């Protein structure tokens, strides 16, 4: 009988961008179980956001994650607009959509590059990140910063897309289309990548449903889910595009979904640039009434959910954030076992995990005798005391 060995990955590991800790339980080369320990990236953003006013929170939630740094503010402003029944000008909706789709392009290219790096195919990494640079330049042209664009604001957007920038955006999109075509051929038809990624880290449709996977992870397992279509926000109900679905559920399917989504994003941005009306870019928001609201956004990694409750003051009373990686990271528990150790790291990376989005809570282990008790522990304690009395007093 083989012996079960624990292999630690992390918290600081050359493969990982972020500190997180995995315990791989292996028998020989085969992974039989996996434990995920997170909490290294917790910064208490939900609590901080309850001490800032509505305009400041948009900047704070942007700092949840550097890769989806428009998805969180987008979901937050959707939540506040739902709460205050605020009408957003048409032009602002289009600008928001353009920014969100540009972000999806840069995030997917980033993941593609990292995936190439993980399988030891650094050419893909360098290519993908090279073609990602023009997208960041676009962000710099539009908003002034390469990342953390600060475009979202309750009631509209902070900056307009100027008319003289639109030809630059179109030109970059044209270059990006040809680069993505090249990429599609180079990655999807490459025999080495196919051998390496096909049939690895399979998440079946049933498992994806059971573990509530979202975004490209779910769509690669054949689940037809996309917030942009199911619950339209921004200008997504005014443009035509397709939801990309693959059936296999392996890492190759996840790669294909992301590459094909690049084309859909480019098409959405083009349609938005054509249809964008003239007009104001923000509504005049006087005060936020008491109540509660939710905002959902399809971030590059899946559904990003924000809940905001207000009591009529200028600060949210409660701000709940659920990031897509929170569900997707947990699917590793079923996707990684069964594979080999060399595939495990790739499987962990295939859901495009973003731990700084995920970690909304932290458990800190300190050397102390104190034990945190739940209700059942208390009842058990009470019963023990009764038993103790019965024995000591001889009843």
């Amino acid at each position, binding site marked *: 009988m083989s012996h079960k060995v624990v292999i630690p990955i992390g918290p*600081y590991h050359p493969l990982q961008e972020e*500190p997180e800790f995995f315990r791989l339980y292996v028998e020989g080369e085969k992974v039989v179980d996996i434990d995920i320990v997170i909490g*290294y990236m917790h910064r208490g953003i939900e609590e901080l956001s309850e001490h800032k006013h509505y305009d400041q929170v948009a900047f704070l939630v942007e700092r*949840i994650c550097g890769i989806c740094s428009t998805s969180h503010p987008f979901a937050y402003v959707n939540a506040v607009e739902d709460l205050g029944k605020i009408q957003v000008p048409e032009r602002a909706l289009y600008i928001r959509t353009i920014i969100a789709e540009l972000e999806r392009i840069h995030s997917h290219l980033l993941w593609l590059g990292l995936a190439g790096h993980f399988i030891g195919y650094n050419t893909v990494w*360098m290519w993908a990140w*090279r073609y990602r640079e023009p997208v960041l330049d676009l962000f710099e042209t539009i908003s002034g910063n*390469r990342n*953390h664009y600060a475009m979202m604001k309750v009631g509209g957007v902070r900056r307009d897309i100027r008319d003289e920038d639109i030809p630059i955006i179109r030109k970059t999109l044209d270059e990006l289309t040809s680069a993505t075509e090249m990429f599609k051929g180079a990655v999807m038809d490459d025999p080495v990548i196919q051998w390496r990624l096909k049939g690895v880290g399979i998440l079946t449709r049933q498992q994806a449903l059971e573990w509530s996977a979202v975004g490209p992870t779910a769509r690669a397992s054949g689940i037809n889910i996309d917030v942009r279509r199911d619950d339209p926000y921004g200008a997504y109900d005014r443009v035509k595009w397709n939801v990309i679905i693959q059936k296999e559920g392996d890492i190759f399917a996840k790669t294909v979904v992301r590459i094909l989504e690049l084309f859909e994003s480019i098409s959405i941005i083009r349609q938005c640039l054509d249809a964008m009306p003239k007009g104001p870019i923000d509504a005049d928001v006087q005060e936020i009434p008491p109540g509660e609201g939710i905002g959902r956004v399809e971030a590059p990694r899946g559904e990003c959910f924000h809940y905001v409750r207000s009591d009529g003051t200028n600060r949210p009373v409660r701000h709940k954030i659920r990031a897509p990686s929170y569900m997707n990271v947990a699917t590793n528990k079923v996707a990684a076992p069964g594979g080999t150790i060399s595939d495990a790291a790739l499987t962990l990376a295939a859901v495009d995990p973003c731990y*700084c989005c995920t970690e909304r809570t932290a458990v800190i282990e300190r050397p102390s005798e104190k034990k945190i008790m739940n209700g059942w522990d208390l009842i058990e304690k009470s019963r023990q005391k009764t038993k103790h009395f019965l024995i000591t007093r001889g009843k």
Partner: protein
Amino acid sequence: MSIKINILTKSLWAYHAATSPCNNCDIEILDVFTPRHDVERFGIVLAGSVRHADVLVVTGVPNFKTKERLKKLYAQAARPCFVVAVGGCACGRIMFRDSYNSPCAVDEVIPVDVYIPGCPPKPEAIIAGIVKLIDKIKGKK
């Protein structure tokens, strides 16, 4: 300046420690190694382990969990080990100053040689910071 230190300035190996950042500085650090900026032509390489590294690049504001790890990483590094704090969080905790889970800035845990502020700093700023570090190692002001 000893021969060893002089050689260091020709090829700095960097180890990247993320202590609860928002990922953005980390991406910009990786960006510095990709074709547009490509600092590998200056001999700067990302090392897999802190024991192989000359520079510890720290991003993010340390929390209770990563603070201890950062201390350990610095203790494990071969001397001399230079520390570069990248991003506003690492330099001065910016908007996480009031958070219950960010007890200190990076320079309260380990000594920092170069600060690169920005949210996130542009790749050009990171390269400029590394140039300043090399000047500092050489003893220039």
